[in-house]
């Protein structure tokens, strides 16, 4: 298979994802409204309740809205990652995932391409959210907007890879709803998206420890630092490691020899 074949295949997968995204306007609106509700209603209500002290990367006191914005960006990517894997479970039930899997290029390449295409969609959602948020006084230095882009690629890929891994292990769409509850909510609430780690530490050191192990916490912190025009190498390293682990396990999950696909078929056809 020539490099041209790889390039054409990747562009084809990217185009399909973009076309599907444009066809599903409700999905785009939902992806935008969800974080805006948190930002404009939840954050306004909790501004007085949840005081945030000066903590890195911030150099002064900040409004609660500013604090939760990176968490909400993480939420956009987390939902997108889970939604694209939801669509893969749906695709597999409906059969169109087969079109991808029976094409001639190596399966790891097909899955990584799909992951990158999903991440591109999530980045579009994030910048649209930030554009709207700008009119509500949530802004970042231009270096922050710029540095955010590569960080979003890594964080988006990590969450997409987790979704891909889950989709390889789930037999039916019905099971996915349960996984959403057991993955999205714990990941989101057990992180630094809505409150800093020291707040959680005061209440429960055990929960704070779990939050510190949560890769989503480190995705949020990577985004938070990037928006301030800085890099958090520790968090970014953890996100990259999680991406490699989730990605590798997902490729194994979709491998016909070792994966879960045949086992999930469960019996004779």
């Amino acid at each position, binding site marked *: 298979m020539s490099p*041209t074949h790889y390039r054409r295949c990747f562009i084809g997968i990217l*185009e399909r994802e973009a076309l*599907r995204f444009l066809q599903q306007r409700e999905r785009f609106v939902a992806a935008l409204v969800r974080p805006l509700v948190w930002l404009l209603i939840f954050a306004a209500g909790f501004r007085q309740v949840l005081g945030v002290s000066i903590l890195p990367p911030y150099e002064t006191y900040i409004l609660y809205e500013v604090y939760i914005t990176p968490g909400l960006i993480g939420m956009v990517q987390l939902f997108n990652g889970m939604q694209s894997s939801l669509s893969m479970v749906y695709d597999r039930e409906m*059969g169109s995932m087969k*079109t991808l899997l*029976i*094409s001639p290029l190596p399966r790891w390449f097909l899955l990584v391409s799909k992951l990158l295409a999903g991440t591109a969609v999530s980045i579009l959602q994030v910048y649209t959210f930030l554009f709207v948020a700008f009119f509500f006084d949530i802004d970042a230095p231009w270096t922050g907007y710029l540095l955010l882009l590569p960080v979003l690629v890594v964080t988006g890929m990590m969450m997409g890879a987790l979704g891909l891994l889950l989709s390889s292990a789930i037999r039916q769409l019905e099971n996915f709803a349960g996984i959403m509850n057991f993955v999205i909510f714990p990941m989101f609430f057990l992180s630094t998206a809505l409150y800093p780690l020291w707040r959680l530490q005061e209440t429960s050191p055990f929960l704070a420890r779990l939050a510190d192990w949560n890769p989503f916490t480190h995705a949020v912190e990577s985004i938070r630092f990037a928006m301030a025009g800085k890099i958090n190498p520790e968090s970014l390293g953890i996100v990259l490691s999680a991406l490699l682990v989730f990605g590798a396990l997902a490729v194994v999950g979709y491998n*016909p020899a070792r994966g879960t696909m045949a086992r999930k078929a469960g019996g004779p*056809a």
Partner: protein
Amino acid sequence: MDSLGLEIAGLTYDFGKGPVLKDVGFSVGPGRFAVLLGPNGAGKTTLISLITRLYDSRTGHIRVAGHDVKRQSGRALARIGVVFQQSTLDLDLTVRQNLNYHAALHGLGRAEAGERIEQELGRFEMLERAGEKVRSLNGGHRRRVEIARALLHRPDFLLLDEPTVGLDVPSRRAIVAHVHQLAREGGIAVLWATHLIDEIFDGDDVIVLHKGEIVAQGSVDEVNRAAGTAGIADSFDKLTGGARE
């Protein structure tokens, strides 16, 4: 060797609850239309999943156009055109967008893909529907689009898993006749999985699969002789213990 469409030998597969396929072996040559006949649960879909490498076999081998599906999966998959039992088209995309996606997966360039899409849709009288969303097409037309799509990358071997399920009688007849013509005139090896006897033509090869085993194979006459009956419907009933629906 390269001229062969499909070759399967000694294929056994199990999901851990006993074998689903037992020592399956047959071949389909270029220009031949082979019917994989078996009642529901015979193992047809498992066999198709193995040929397309959705599952991996541990014993036996499968070769497409001379390429081993396990060891040279890329080359083998590049030579297969597949129509699955369930539609695999994206309903929210247009016919042309679906075909463009498939062409990209197979590495075809824009211009070449455009030409072939015109050609294949024209062959199935679907060209004027190219800009419509798949959702707006009826079942018969969706099937035609899927077959056109499976032929876009010019495969040596076309695999169809019960492609007429859910279609009305005229659509079913038209598609069966069309694919027979494709094999005859295009020199493509075709494996057509079904449990419907009336989709078999006199000159076809027949492989009867029952409970994961091939119980008869050959021309229609050879299968009838092996079963000791006068017609393929009776042969099928006898060979599968009346399991036909």
